[in-house]
C-alpha cells in the first residue's frame, strides 16, 4: 500500500453549475456555448441589506438548480450553500463512478482507503453574514448552533467525507481561485503516495452576495457590463472588463488505475499530475509576464509524463480580466514554444462565470469531459481577439479534438499568487 507514483485515473464526474444541475447538462451547455450569466433580480435582493440599484455590479452566474430543489430541508439548515453544492456534485460523481453505497458498505472500497479533498476559496461567508444579522436583530440566543460548522472552510470537505465514510483523510487546500485545482492535485498525491485508493476531489463556492460583489468590484476586478449580462464574461476579447461572479461545484472521483481495473470501473482519462508555484509578486495582481505561471508549467513538465507534443487542449484560467488573460498566454508561449500552436484553448468562464474556489473543480470536470468526448468547448463573446493573445483560442463553436493519445491541461491561479496546473491524458 506504500506504492509511489501509482497511475491515477478519473472514474467519476459531478457538477452543479450556472449551466445545469449535473455534469451532463453542464457539458451540453458548454458545448452549445450557453451563457449562465443573468441580471440579478429585485427578488434576489429582497432579503439583503442593500438596494439592487446601489450595487455597481448587478449581474452574476447563479446556479441553474437551487439546492433547495434537490436536498431535504433539514440538510439545508445545517449546510452552508457552498457545502450544499459540494454534496450535490459529490453524490453525482460517486454514483457516476459506479459506487452504490458509502465506503465500507460498498465492498469495492473500504472506508480506510477513501479520502476527500474538497476546497472553497471563501468558505461559508453567507452563513456568517446571515447569522450576524440574526445576532443584531434577534439576539445571541437565536444564533444557529450550526454556525461554526457551516462557516468553516473545511465544511464542504467534511460533509463530503461524512457522506461517503472517508477515513483515509479529509482535506481543504485554500488558495483563493486556485483552491479547487489544488484540491484535485492534493487528491492525486494522496493516491500516488499510497494513502488512499479513491479520493473525491474538487471545489465549491457560493458567495453571490452584495458584500463580496461590492468588495471585488472595488478592486476593479469585475465586469460592470450590467446591460448585457450574457456578453459580460469575455475572456481574451479586446473589450473584456473583468470577471463575472459564479457559484456551484465540480467534483471528480480519482482512483488508482489498479483499483479501477480491479473493480471494472469505467475510466474517463488519466490524471498525470500537477505543477505548482507561487508568484511572490503581489497579494492580488497577477505577475504581468506570467513568470510564476511559467514556473508551474515547468514544474509540471519536469515531474510528470506529460509530452508537450501530445498537448491538444487547454482549459485556461482566463477570467476575463485585462491583465490576467494575457499573462497566462505569455507564460504558456514561454514554456511550450511552438507546441502551443497545436493546443485548442477554451475559456469556459465565458459561460459559467468565475466560480472562484469552485472553478478548479468545475473546470477539471470540463477538461475530463473534453478529453472523453474529444471536444474543446467554445469561448463565447470572443468578437475581437486581443492582439496580445498569441494562441489558438477556440471561438464561438466547439471544436473536435484529434484522435490518438492526446493530453490536456487545466490552469487555475488565485489571489495570493498561487499557480496550479493540472495535466490529464486520454487512456
Amino acid at each position, binding site marked *: 500500500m506504500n506504492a509511489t507514483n501509482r497511475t491515477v485515473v478519473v472514474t467519476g464526474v459531478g457538477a452543479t453549475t450556472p449551466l445545469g444541475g449535473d455534469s451532463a447538462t453542464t457539458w451540453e451547455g458548454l458545448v452549445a456555448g450557453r451563457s449562465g450569466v443573468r441580471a440579478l433580480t429585485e427578488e434576489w435582493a429582497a432579503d439583503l441589506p442593500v438596494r439592487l440599484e446601489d450595487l455597481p455590479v448587478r449581474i452574476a452566474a447563479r446556479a441553474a438548480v437551487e439546492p433547495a430543489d434537490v436536498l*431535504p430541508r*433539514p440538510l439545508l439548515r*445545517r449546510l452552508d450553500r457552498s457545502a450544499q453544492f459540494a454534496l450535490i456534485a459529490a453524490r453525482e460523481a460517486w454514483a457516476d463512478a459506479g459506487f452504490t453505497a458509502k465506503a465500507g458498505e460498498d465492498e469495492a472500497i473500504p472506508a480506510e482507503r477513501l479520502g476527500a479533498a474538497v476546497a472553497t476559496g471563501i468558505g461559508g461567508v453567507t452563513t456568517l453574514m446571515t447569522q450576524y444579522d440574526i445576532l443584531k436583530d434577534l439576539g445571541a*440566543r437565536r444564533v444557529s*448552533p450550526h454556525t461554526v460548522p457551516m462557516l468553516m472552510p473545511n465544511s464542504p470537505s467534511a460533509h463530503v467525507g461524512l457522506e461517503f465514510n472517508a477515513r483515509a483523510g479529509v482535506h481543504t487546500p485554500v488558495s483563493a481561485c486556485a483552491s479547487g485545482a489544488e484540491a484535485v492535485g492534493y487528491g492525486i498525491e494522496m493516491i500516488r503516495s499510497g494513502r488512499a485508493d479513491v479520493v473525491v476531489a474538487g471545489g465549491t463556492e457560493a458567495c453571490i452576495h452584495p458584500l463580496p460583489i461590492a468588495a471585488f468590484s472595488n478592486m476593479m476586478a469585475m465586469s460592470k457590463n450590467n446591460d448585457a449580462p450574457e456578453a459580460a464574461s469575455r475572456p481574451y476579447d479586446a473589450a473584456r472588463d473583468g470577471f463575472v461572479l459564479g457559484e456551484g461545484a465540480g467534483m471528480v472521483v480519482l482512483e488508482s488505475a489498479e483499483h479501477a481495473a480491479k473493480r471494472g470501473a469505467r475510466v474517463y482519462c488519466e490524471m498525470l499530475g500537477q505543477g505548482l508555484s507561487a508568484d511572490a509578486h503581489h497579494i492580488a495582481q497577477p505577475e504581468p509576464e506570467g513568470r510564476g505561471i511559467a514556473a508551474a508549467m515547468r514544474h509540471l513538465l519536469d515531474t510528470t509524463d506529460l509530452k508537450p507534443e501530445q498537448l491538444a487542449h487547454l482549459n485556461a484560467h482566463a477570467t476575463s480580466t485585462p491583465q490576467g488573460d494575457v499573462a497566462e498566454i505569455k507564460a504558456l508561449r514561454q514554456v511550450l514554444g511552438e507546441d502551443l500552436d497545436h493546443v485548442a484553448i477554451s475559456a469556459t468562464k465565458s459561460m459559467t462565470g468565475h466560480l472562484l474556489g469552485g472553478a478548479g473543480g468545475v473546470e477539471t470536470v470540463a477538461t475530463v469531459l473534453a478529453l472523453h468526448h474529444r471536444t474543446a468547448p467554445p469561448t463565447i463573446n470572443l468578437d475581437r481577439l486581443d492582439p496580445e493573445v498569441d494562441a489558438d483560442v477556440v471561438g464561438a463553436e466547439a471544436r473536435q479534438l484529434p484522435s490518438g493519445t492526446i493530453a490536456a491541461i487545466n490552469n487555475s491561479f488565485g489571489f495570493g499568487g498561487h499557480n496550479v496546473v493540472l495535466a490529464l491524458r486520454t487512456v
Partner: protein
Amino acid sequence: MAATKEEIIAGLADIVNEIAGIPNDEVTEEKSFTDDLDVDSLSMVEVVVAAEERFGVKIPDDDVRGLKTVGDAVTYIAEHQS
C-alpha cells in the same frame, strides 16, 4: 394562557418536523430526540430555542441535558410555562 399537553406535543412535532424533517405524527412522547428523531446535540439547541419562543419558557443549558425524550420536554414545558 398555558398550553395543554396535547398542544405542547403538537407544537414540538411542528418544530421537530421543521428542524429534522420527521413527520409530525412520529413525534410522540416516548421518542428519544437523539435516537429516534434525528436531532443531534446541535439541532437540539435549535429545538429548545424554538420551543422557548413558542411556549414562552426559558430552558437553561443545564436543564436541556435532562430532556431525552419528547415526553421529558412536554413535562418540562408544562411545568415551567408562564
